[in-house]
């Protein structure tokens, strides 16, 4: 994590309340430039409101938002519209114009920014090529698949060369395979255009597969944040741990990450082994020392960023006291033990 990190988006003590309900409660975040920053939270955690605040669609009740060093939450209408033209955004439901073809959708932001006709024409072709839809320029939106629609939406968001791209649950309406291809496209574009990408999601796999940094949002507050790798290896809060357990329960059966569950028997524990401990015989040691037995239901190795995370789904049985001691011992050795409530 060397290199200087310029603070591209800075949120300070944001508060937004609807009818006495704190949708966003005192959120402060630094979103570095030229990175993919994830904001994860369950529905109702305040994600959508936070997005509407950061993308300047709504004003906070209090708090400040900075893009680079420019304060943007208090801009006047005219300046606000100008600023929004340098912000790209894609949505869960794509939000494409049904009255326009794929190409015309991409042309829209350039039309309102008063690009010349020739410029629009050539940029549309260029963008369609970028998202891999060169042959669908004149296609009506309804004839496109979900993944293609999101590609058109991405091209449209990038049309006026924004410096920020917001993705609001951009892959939540897509199947896993399409999700992967859209995430790959976003990662690719982020590098090519040096974009600051903010991804709002409730899917841990999106964070795992695409983000560099992540903030966990719960009940309108940021409860945990940091580089994705760190969060995965040492989740601190229960909210984060719960998200991680979803990741495993989502991967019931064979998955591309290689976590294999060979029994549907409800196991009570998920152990996570980080990089350096993948090859140590910790389990054998614990079994011998505390006289407990492990019933392993599933296991596999997942890659998070550059590090390997071994995941083991298992039951630990024996004397209650001994089980507790065994777990403590595992934790002492840097293994994350999550209890699954079944």
């Amino acid at each position: 994590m060397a290199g200087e990190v310029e603070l591209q988006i800075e949120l300070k003590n944001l508060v937004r309340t609807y009818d006495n309900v704190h949708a966003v409660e005192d959120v402060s975040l630094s979103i570095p430039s030229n990175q993919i920053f994830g904001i994860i939270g369950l529905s109702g955690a305040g994600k959508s409101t936070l997005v509407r605040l950061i993308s300047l669609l709504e004003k906070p009740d209090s708090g400040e938002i900075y893009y680079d060093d420019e304060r943007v939450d208090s801009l006047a209408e005219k300046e606000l519209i100008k600023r929004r033209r340098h912000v790209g955004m894609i949505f869960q439901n794509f939000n494409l114009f049904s009255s326009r073809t794929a190409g015309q959708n991409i042309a829209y932001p350039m039309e309102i920014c008063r690009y010349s006709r020739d410029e629009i024409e050539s940029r549309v072709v260029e963008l369609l090529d970028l998202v891999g839809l060169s042959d669908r320029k004149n296609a009506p939106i309804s004839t496109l698949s979900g993944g293609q629609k999101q590609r058109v939406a991405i091209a449209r968001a990038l049309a006026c060369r924004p410096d920020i791209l917001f993705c609001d649950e951009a892959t939540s309406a897509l199947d896993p395979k399409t999700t992967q291809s859209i995430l790959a496209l976003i990662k690719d574009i982020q590098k090519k255009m040096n974009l600051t990408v903010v991804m709002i999601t409730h899917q841990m796999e999106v964070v795992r597969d695409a983000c560099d940094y992540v903030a966990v949002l719960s009940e309108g507050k940021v409860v945990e944040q940091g580089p994705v790798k760190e969060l995965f290896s040492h989740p601190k809060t229960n909210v984060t741990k719960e998200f991680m357990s979803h990741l495993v329960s989502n991967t019931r059966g064979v998955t591309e990450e290689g976590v294999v569950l060979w029994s549907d028997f409800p196991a009570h524990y998920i152990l996570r082994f980080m990089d350096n401990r993948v090859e140590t015989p910790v389990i054998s040691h614990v079994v011998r020392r505390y006289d407990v037995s492990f019933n392993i239901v599933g296991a596999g190795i997942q890659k998070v960023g550059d590090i390997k995370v071994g995941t083991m789904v298992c039951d630990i049985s024996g004397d209650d006291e001994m089980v507790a001691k065994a777990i403590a011992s595992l934790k002492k050795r840097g293994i994350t033990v999550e209890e699954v409530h079944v």
Partner: protein
Amino acid sequence: MSSITPAIWRLIWQSTLQTLQMVSLSTLFSVILGLPLGILLCITSPVSQGGLRPRPVLNEVLGRVVNILRSFPFIILIILLFPLSRLIVGTAIGTKSTIVPLSIAAAPFVARVVETALKEVDPGVVQAAKTMGSTDLQIVFKVLLPEALPSLVSGLTLTIINLIGYSAMAGAVGGGGLGDLAIRYGYQRFRTDVLLVAVVVILVLVEVVQFAGNRISAKMMSKR
């Protein structure tokens, strides 16, 4: 009962032309009056209903005016608007002067049709247009109206059909057209055959407009 002479056929033809003139011109004027009103009703409505620029008081006042005009019995409206017709057209009777009350009666209907059609546009699409930095004017003319076009066409079809009906009613107070013919010849002179022909022509007009409207709307939808 005598048969319909060529002279009467000519009369029917002239009445049909008068009806077409009344209906087409009053459609035009009611759209000119109703479209901006409908757009205004939509954008001044509360944010929860898709209002871009909520103006509660203005919205309430406009809504009330539209409701009052719409609940007015048309025949009374024509009589009340005699002075206005005289002022604009110079006379209160005949085809041209009927266009004034027809347009004013249909304008609030058009306004509601436009308002409803615009409010049906997916709020997500409007949000997307907003995040891209569209001005309100751009959202209305480049997003809301094009997106709502098929339902606007359906609404316009309904307006024209309403106006055909209204224009027939205007015949009762000397408005000209097929309604006038049906009342003066068919009813007052007991020419049931003329009455019947007038009614059939009106029915045919309504059917043609409905058919054309449906076709245009369907064709638009098929291209989306």
